[in-house]
């Protein structure tokens, strides 16, 4: 006997899957814009360890000379990115889903345990609800980053009309740097997220599409091994 356990509400799945191509478009068009003044690098003094971005990167993705196209895309998709993100935050607050997502005081300690476990270091996984502590921190951080991108984005888009915001973000040039670093952050998040989804397996991925998890019903208890806890009621 099996039972279906509802995991991700339809709204959250929509927000998630809409955000994916929209954020990808924001990163892509952002790259087309950044190319026109690609001054950021990792290094010190005259030494450059890594230039954002090497010519080979621009060539491989055909990024050069498309500033106008990049801006045109960026300033349309920014609305989709903003509205979708705003509705997501609103939904998590109103529905109470935020309780599964926002880290609590145990999360930071538990996140380290999750990390050690994921790195195959001897550590048992702490009990978890829908999201483990590391996920809570990551998924909340990405929302904070989203706010950061909107704030720094507005600061460089309308530095006069949003002069107060621009000042708050450290000025025009600092806001641009933060905006850029946040984009690198999304890219890192994306890579880790994909790796984790692959490692977590089919059932986890399926739940982000179908919304449900399948659970064995442990009856009679004596004959069956203990099933991994995924019941959200333990939160």
């Amino acid at each position: 006997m099996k039972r279906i356990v509802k995991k991700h509400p339809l709204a959250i799945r929509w927000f998630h899957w809409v955000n994916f191509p929209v954020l990808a478009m924001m990163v892509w068009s952002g790259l087309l814009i950044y190319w026109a003044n690609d001054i950021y690098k990792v290094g010190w003094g005259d030494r450059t360890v890594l230039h954002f971005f090497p010519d080979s990167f621009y060539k491989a993705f055909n990024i050069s000379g498309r500033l106008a196209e990049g801006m045109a895309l960026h300033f349309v998709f920014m609305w989709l990115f903003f509205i979708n993100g705003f509705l997501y935050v609103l939904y998590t607050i109103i529905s109470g889903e935020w309780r599964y997502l926002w880290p609590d005081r145990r999360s930071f300690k538990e996140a380290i345990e999750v990390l050690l476990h994921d790195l195959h270091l001897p550590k048992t996984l702490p009990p978890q609800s829908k999201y483990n502590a590391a996920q809570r921190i990551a998924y909340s951080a990405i929302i904070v980053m989203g706010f950061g991108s909107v704030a720094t984005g507005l600061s460089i888009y309308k530095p006069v009309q949003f002069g107060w915001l621009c000042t708050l973000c450290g000025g025009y040039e600092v806001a641009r740097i933060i905006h850029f670093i946040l984009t690198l952050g999304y890219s890192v998040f994306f890579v880790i997220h994909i790796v984790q989804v692959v490692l977590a397996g089919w059932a986890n991925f399926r739940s982000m599409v179908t919304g449900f998890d399948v659970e064995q019903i442990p009856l009679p208890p004596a004959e069956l091994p203990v099933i991994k806890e995924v019941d959200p009621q333990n939160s």
Partner: protein
Amino acid sequence: MEEHKHNDEVVSDRQIRRRTILSFIGFFVFIGVGFLAFRWLYHTPDAAGVHAPLRKGYEVNEKIFGSTFNKNKLVKTYPLSAAVKNVRVNGDVGMGNDFDVSTWRMHLVRKPGDTLLISLADIKALPKTEVIFDFKCIEGWSQVTHWGGVRFSDFLAKNGITDLAAFKYVGLQTPDKQYYVGIDMSSMMQPQTLLCYEMNGKPLPYDQGAPLRLIIPVKYGIKHLKRIGYLFFSNQKPPDYWAERGYDYYSGH
């Protein structure tokens, strides 16, 4: 969350498979629609250098942010010491060498067939205003630079042509008409918008648009036309060099 408990359903493998397949059909339709939408966007006709819906996007943004534009709001200014000495020169369209600064006059077209010729002396006779601000290029770089000239609003007032401020747009062109911009009137009337003839306290250098250029701190650099040849007024958007090449017509801050 107790509600989850009540939503749990006992189901067969067949039912699970059926619900999974249905969900994934919806998922693939979603991906397909997204893909088609993207293909559609990139097959829409060109509207001055960008796909038509993206041009529409520029225009909607112009309506939204243009409507909240406050022409009395000042751009942040800097102390003199912050101004750079080596001011970047970016772009030379309309700056051909067959040009004689000494015979230059600005053609002020009050209406078609009614043109005033303005000399640099006429401009300099008006009260001078200086501005030190962060000049922002649409490419993404910026420089704190120091400019001097006559407020556009003063220029209109002193020439007794404030009624021309009722037009929606101002158009500017280089003497050879190779470079041209169109700017909304409220941005032109912002008190830091200058008909500029000085940079760093000295006469405007040749490659910075001598003898007279536009400095308009509420816009990206592409609107700061160098070497003003013609100035006119219109209720339709005057042609704009970079807006014809895929950029935002408004390009304002």
